[in-house]
Every structure is written in C-alpha cells, then in structure tokens.
C-alpha cells in the first residue's frame, strides 16, 4: 500500500480491538488527532511505505493485517523524536516496539529479515548473559541474508585490526546462562 493510496473502509478488513492489543499504552492511540508531527519528526519517514501518521491512522481504524504486512516499523531506529514531540502525549516509539513484537510473533513475511536480527541478538544473550558481537553477526547473517555479509566483510576486518571485535569460540551444548529466566518470562507472558 502506497502512502498516497485511498483506502475504501467499507471493503477493508478491520479489527477495532487492534489498539488494545498494543499493550500497555496502545489504547492511548485513540487520542491521535492526525497532526502529522510524528511523520515530520521521523528521520526514516522518507524510506517508509506507510508514513508514521498514516500508519497510526490505520492502527486506529483496526487495519491490523495491512499494518503488520508492511516493513514500516522495522525502519524505526528508536530515536524517540515522535514520542517526545507528540502533542497528545502518546508513547509512539514504545508502541512501535509492540508492533514489531506482534509482527515477529505472527511471523509476517515482510518482517523475516529484521526479525532475524533481533532473534540472533537475544539468542546470544540467552546463551551467555552478555553480548558477543562476532557470534551475533554470524548468527544474524546465517539466519537472514548470508550474501549481504559480504558488504560488511571489509568493515569487519578493519574493526578486528583495531582490536574492536574479537572472535570467540561459541559454546555448543549445555544450558544457556539465561535459559531458566527466558523460560519463566515466556511462561508469565502466556499468563498476561
């Protein structure tokens, strides 16, 4: 869906409870007055298929499928400009994180590549309790788009020569440092 496209609300599938699922503050989106400050403040807006203002209107209207099917939320770099400038006090940036979570859990096709990044990061944290940058990057490129790794090979070597990154042997087998904690969190999330 392009930013300029007109939506026929009588034919599009809508779920009016969409905002309520964007916990904890999604329902605050009902306050949105469509002023467009979010779009004007967003450094990624020109590259988005849906502008932030349009996306929030679609969320308000319950157009869950269309929103989650886009890549828009994955272009958010968490700069928080839209959130601090929103004249209605809506925590927009935090709510984008909830959209990402939803798209990831629903395994949306457009989210696959970005999801690989977040999955790889948390897998490393679960395993060791702390980040290991090299293993994270290897896991990401293997899960996501292995060919894109070539674009970063030169940079990787430069960083290694400066002692900025150092490969460590991955630990295979055995329990991860945070297995128990992650399992407990998943259990509690299921109850919420």
């Amino acid at each position, binding site marked *: 869906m392009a930013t300029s496209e007109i939506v026929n609300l009588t034919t599009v599938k809508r779920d009016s409870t969409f905002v309520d699922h964007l*916990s*904890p503050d999604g329902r605050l989106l009902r306050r949105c007055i469509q002023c467009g400050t979010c779009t004007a403040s967003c*450094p*990624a807006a020109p*590259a988005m298929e849906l502008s932030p203002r349009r996306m929030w209107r679609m969320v308000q209207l319950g157009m869950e499928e269309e929103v989650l099917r886009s890549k828009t939320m*994955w*272009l958010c*770099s*968490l*700069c*928080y*400009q839209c*959130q*601090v400038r929103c004249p209605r006090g809506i925590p927009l*940036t*935090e709510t984008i*994180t*909830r959209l*990402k*979570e939803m798209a*990831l859990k629903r395994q949306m096709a457009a989210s696959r*590549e*970005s999801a690989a*990044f*977040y*999955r790889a*990061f*948390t897998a490393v*944290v679960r395993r060791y*309790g*702390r*980040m290991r*940058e090299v293993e994270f*990057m290897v896991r*990401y490129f293997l899960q996501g788009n292995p060919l894109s790794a070539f*674009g*970063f090979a*030169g*940079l990787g070597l*430069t*960083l290694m020569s*400066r*002692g*900025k*990154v*150092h490969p460590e042997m991955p630990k295979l087998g055995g329990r991860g*440092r*945070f297995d*128990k*904690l*992650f399992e*407990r*969190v*998943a259990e*509690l*999330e299921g109850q*919420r």
Partner: protein
Amino acid sequence: MTRKYLFYPGCSQDSSALEYKVSTLAVLEALGAEVKELQDWTCCGASAASVMSDLLGLVLPARNLALAEQSREGWDVLTVCSACYTNFRRTMEAAADPTTLATINQALDVEGVTYHGQAVARHVMDVLANDFTVEEVTALVKRPLTGLTVAPYYGCQTVRPYSPFDDDQRPTSMIAVLEALGATVHNHNREASCCGTSLLTTKPELGVKMTSSVLEACEPADCVATVCPMCHMNLDSYQGKVSQELGREVRIPILFLPQLMGLAFGLPESAMMFKRHVVSVKPVLERLTEAKAA
C-alpha cells in the same frame, strides 16, 4: 564530598568500545570519584529484548538494578551507553506500577534477586556535567584544548525520552565541559539527531543517510565528541560508506568525551587508547601541538 558510583559497563565496554570504559574510569579517578564495577552484571537487552517480549525488555535491565540495590551502598548506577541508560530508566518508570513490578519479580525469582524500583541509573553525560563543578574540571587541565574546535554530539537516547538532565531537542550539557577544557564549541543542529543505530546493518541505505547527515553537520569542526558507544561505532567506522554516499571524502575524528577530558588532563595514551579508532585521531593531536607552539 566524594562522589561514588556503581559502574555498569554494558556489553560493548569490554569489546568494541573498551577505550570508552578505560577513559571514563581514568577521568573519574582523576576527578576523585570512587567507582566500583557492578558484580555479575548482564546484558540490558539493548533494543532487541523488548521486541522479542515486552516483559523480557523489563526483566533484563531489572536484574542489574536489583543487583545494584543488593549491594546496599545505595550508590547511583553509572552507565556510559545510551541504550543501556534508556532501558534502565524505562524499567525504573515501569516499576512505579505495582502490578508490573510484581510480574518482573516473579521472573527474577529464578535468578534469586528482587528489584524494588529504588536503584537510580545515571548517564555519564549527566555525571560529568552535573556532579563536578566547572572549577573542579578546570583545576585538572594541564594541556588545554586551545585552538581545537569540537562538535558536541549527544545522539538520541542520551537525552530522549527519559533523561531528566537535559533538553531533549537542544541539549547543552557538553558545552560547559568542553569549554572548561579550553576547546571551542562548534554549534550545529544535529547534536541530538539519530546516528542510524542498527539500521546500518539491517537497512544500510537508510542508515548511511542518517550517519551522513550527522557527520555533515559536524564537519566544520576538528573532531566530534560523543557519549554513546553505538553512536561512536557508526560515526567512526562508517565514514568510508558516508564518503560514497556524499560523493566526496569525509574524514573527521570521533572522540568519546572522556577521551577529550583525558587529553586535557594530560593522562597517558594508555588511558585513551586512540589506536583503536578507525579514523585516526592524529589530526587532533597535531592541532594541539600546533596551538601550543603558536
């Protein structure tokens, strides 16, 4: 009064941004602060954990805050990374809701710690600008940064959205510190713009544009001063790609604010570790030597 801090390094401080940790600790020592590393600290979850799960994004920072509370000294938690800082402050705010705090603690039970929502996390920018007077900083300057023009760069999460210590649109904390060191401040309007963060990896075309716009604004200066390891990584190591994007060579040294303080305090090179930078810091050192001779 001795100022005391529990230092939470965060993952990047033992690898890609080791020079940030080393220079911060050296500068705080010179300023007479007492600093202890938080024992058994773990990852704050960065920007990834809360995407995987809202609760996980609170539990990972809360574990570290709980450890800080357990240490019983009641010292502020000092963080040098703006992403860690944002996660800690977000967790502190979320803990004000008793139901959320209870759920966090149900999860932390498996780690054998309890979070009470009392530990206070602070950014090194806040500490350096507000816990020490300009006179205290000036008194330590042995080699003033006279003749050096520095572009302050705060990035986003240092000042947004949870920062209580500076303006979230036009931050100013760094100015007095840089001037106390004898540097000239280059005013520009990208000081709190986004560096591109992980977009440089996941959406490189967009990420490089964001990095470029920051570097372009800073370019008239001799160097940039940053207070975030992520911003530093992007601004320092992507200048090749930025040059391609802008169609001309861009080359400007990116220094952590504590490294600049270390330079002015006359601390040894081992406290600054300039050799780890991708863009050489040499022009900055030469500029200072020239200024001294003149």
